[in-house]
């Protein structure tokens, strides 16, 4: 068994608008001199610390938790799960 850090990023699915990201882009970033930025998306990140056999199982376990407990609403959001060695 090993300890892993698992990062769960929850964001709106592609095609679904993200008003917060748009406001930060248009009303803050683009009003400065940072014209090279073309998009900002907001997301929420949860950091799990988990003890599992390997990275694959750790990822699957966290995915299962996210699905079971409705940690994100699949109707609007998607999750990206990244696993790192602790």
């Amino acid at each position: 068994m090993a300890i892993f850090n698992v990062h769960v990023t929850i964001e709106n699915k592609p095609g679904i608008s993200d008003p917060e990201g748009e406001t930060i882009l248009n009303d803050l970033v683009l009003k400065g001199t940072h014209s090279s930025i073309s998009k900002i998306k907001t997301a929420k990140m949860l950091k799990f610390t988990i003890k599992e056999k390997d990275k694959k199982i750790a990822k699957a376990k966290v995915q299962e938790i996210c699905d079971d407990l409705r940690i994100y609403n699949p109707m609007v959001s998607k999750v990206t799960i990244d696993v790192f060695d602790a």
Partner: protein
Amino acid sequence: MKVGVIVFPGSNCDRDMYHVLTDVFKLDAEYFWHEKGLPKNIDAVILPGGFSYGDRLRSGAIAAHSPIINDVRKMAEKGIPILGVCNGFQILVEAGLLPGALLKNTSLNFMCRWTSLIVENNKTPFTNKLKLHQKIPIPIANGEGRYYVDELTLKKLKKNNQIVFRYSEVVNGSTDRIAGVCNEDGNVVGMMPHPERATESAINPIDNKPSSLIFESLIKTIGVKN
């Protein structure tokens, strides 16, 4: 005497504040859109409550970059009375004109309820007609209203008499029950509760006189100048 009421995109207590200034206290007030400048003849500035930029990123974080904030900063330096209420307070904090930060309430929910304040500093332009430790019945309405400062800053605030109002009870987890603070010079005041919602007996079920004194203090302050 002229009071400027600054309007940001998403301000929503601007009209309430204007009503109280003009109809209740017969002051001369004018709205200023955040992209415009402030004229020189302004005697006091109020940043009203609301959800500037929809509270995105952090409450007040985007409005703090509005062009008008440069003028507010200049006026603050000149000692002109400036009051930020609720989102206005958050903006002043984000702009660095007041110390601290405003975090999510410990309930994690938006809270709208009546509570009462205790006056801790009655030397500011907005409290000089109130008695020290006087109670003010007043409503709060915010989601990110928990005032936070680290211990070192708290010590400094206490030493400089920068704590203007405390809640009389634990409301949202604010450091030291702080509800309002001022800058070191005392002319810039920020508070989370809404005095403009408490000055008229028709809408104040408890007692409208104490919060009226906040506006009467302002009249006393800027009236003397003229």
